[in-house]
């Protein structure tokens, strides 16, 4: 939980399109398929905004626990679940 994560800046672009937050891979090897893009919902976007290459994951979780309703455990599971998926897809990197 002391790890620090950041968007893989050279490999993905995050854009908002008509209210939808999407992440577009631009480097080879990121994402699985041609034309694949990723969409984050409002809470996913809130997590994404905090993965700034400075905050430890533990801090991200405690900030979100203040900002969002839900038990601390639930939020912790959501954040780690999302981070795992983003890491697997090489959308974020560990700093």
């Amino acid at each position, binding site marked *: 939980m002391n790890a620090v994560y950041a968007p893989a800046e050279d490999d993905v*672009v*995050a*854009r908002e*399109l*008509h*209210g*939808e937050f*999407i992440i*577009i891979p*631009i*480097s*080879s090897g990121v*994402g*699985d398929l*041609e*034309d*694949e*893009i*990723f*969409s*984050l*919902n409002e*809470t*996913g976007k809130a997590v994404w905004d905090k993965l700034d290459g400075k905050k430890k994951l533990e801090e991200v979780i405690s900030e*979100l626990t203040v900002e*969002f*309703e*839900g038990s601390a455990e*639930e*939020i912790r*599971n*959501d954040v780690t*679940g*999302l981070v795992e*998926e*983003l890491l697997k*897809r090489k*959308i974020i990197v560990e700093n």
Partner: protein
Amino acid sequence: MGKKSSYVVTKNLNQASLWRNTKPLLGRLDIELTERCNNNCIHCCINLAEHDKTARDKELSTKELKNILVEAADLGCMMVRFTGGEPLLRDDFEELYIFTRKLGMKVILFTNGRLITLRLVELFAKMPPGEKIEITVYGMTKGSYDSAVRRQGAYEEAWQGINLLLANNIPFVVKGALLPSNKTELKEFEDFASTVTWMDRGPSYSMFFDLRGRRDSEKRNAQIKALRLSPEEGLSILTRDKKEYMKDKKQFCAKFTRPAGNNLFSCGAGKGSACVDAYGKLQLCMGLRHPDTVFDLRKQSIKTIMTERFADIRKMQAKNPRYMERCAKCFLKGLCEQCPGKSWTEHGTLDTPVQYFCDITHAQAEYLGLLGKGEKAWTVENWQERIRKFVEEV
């Protein structure tokens, strides 16, 4: 927050649902980076000399192009096509390419391939364009290629470029231009095309060549006209794979055949897409350069032009009696290349029927059984019945 099995939703970039039922004002932008070209193809409708200083001085700067790209992305654009002339002639091509990709937009590159270098290929490998590169091949032998493009050494360079893409596994497709010098090499070209793994169908050809888009040379227009295939020759090329041709046309006719009336714009030009010329004029489409229909991006934004100016242009009505008599009543309008852009290049107006395209369309319609021999499409009253029969025929 709540329980989920997956936190990231994957979507296809071309998925319409991305837009939740709204289409972006601008989904695709074509940019002619330059009208200059290192080839001088005999059939070309646009090229200026590679080192034409007057043209180069007027071209959009890197900064101006970047501003246009940023606005395009803001308007929802997901795809940019770089074309020309030869877009790779611009010294800032790499910079513009990376900039476009980093805005999250895909790139389609139209090129003759001569300036594809190892460095560029390495960039495409690291940061793929997201769309297949499109290369026009002007000949399979040195003699045919160089005589079509009228440049010594072009053949070797173009094939070196193609081989670099192949060797580095960069997706591309090839297209042809049917010219007297390469007509006999069709089979060789198609055999090569069939080995290009990214081609999901046979190559497309330009053969009904456009006249000069700037209406800048009667001499060159005469040369282009002399190279055009006759409607009959064109038909024999189009129908080489008869089954495929019939299938395509049935699908097309089921949707797009009907008289369009006096509205000049029955196509989608300027709706969701637009084209920037090398000097910053925004056009509804690549072919339409009539001065009354283009607007300066150095003075106005894409948004203003598309929402205000283009909307007005798209309401324009034909005034030419010959157009109103023929094209306005013609059920084959969708099948025909007649449009304000063609009218502009051929006649300098927006609404003059172009006989060459009329003849091509009539030849096709006779072949498809939609017209009898010598019958004129605009005189047909029972066109709905004819289309229905044609589409339903097994």
